């Protein structure tokens, strides 16, 4: 069977299509929690630097 040609997405106009793959009812909270974990990690690292602590 011929290889199905899937057109390359054009972003940002095709960004919305991510929600055709990831159901936000399932994945929105894990995405937000991942952002929170990254933010806490970065803040912890920056705060460990005495120059940016108080």
């Amino acid at each position: 069977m011929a290889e199905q040609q899937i057109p390359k997405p054009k972003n940002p106009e095709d960004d919305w299509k991510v929600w055709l793959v990831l159901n936000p009812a399932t994945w929105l909270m894990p995405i937000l929690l991942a952002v929170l974990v990254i933010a806490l990690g970065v803040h912890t690292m920056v705060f460990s630097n005495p120059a940016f602590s108080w």
Partner: protein
Amino acid sequence: MAEQASLSGLTPDQAKEFHEQFKITYTTFAGLAAVAHLLVLVWKPWF
């Protein structure tokens, strides 16, 4: 032909509707983060 069900189960319209809100929330988050970084930059320039 019946509309092709997506992997997530959302219809294209639902995906576009959710994405509009997602963009608003993300832009607000990025804006607040930019303001916070500007305040830190004023307090202690790191470069």
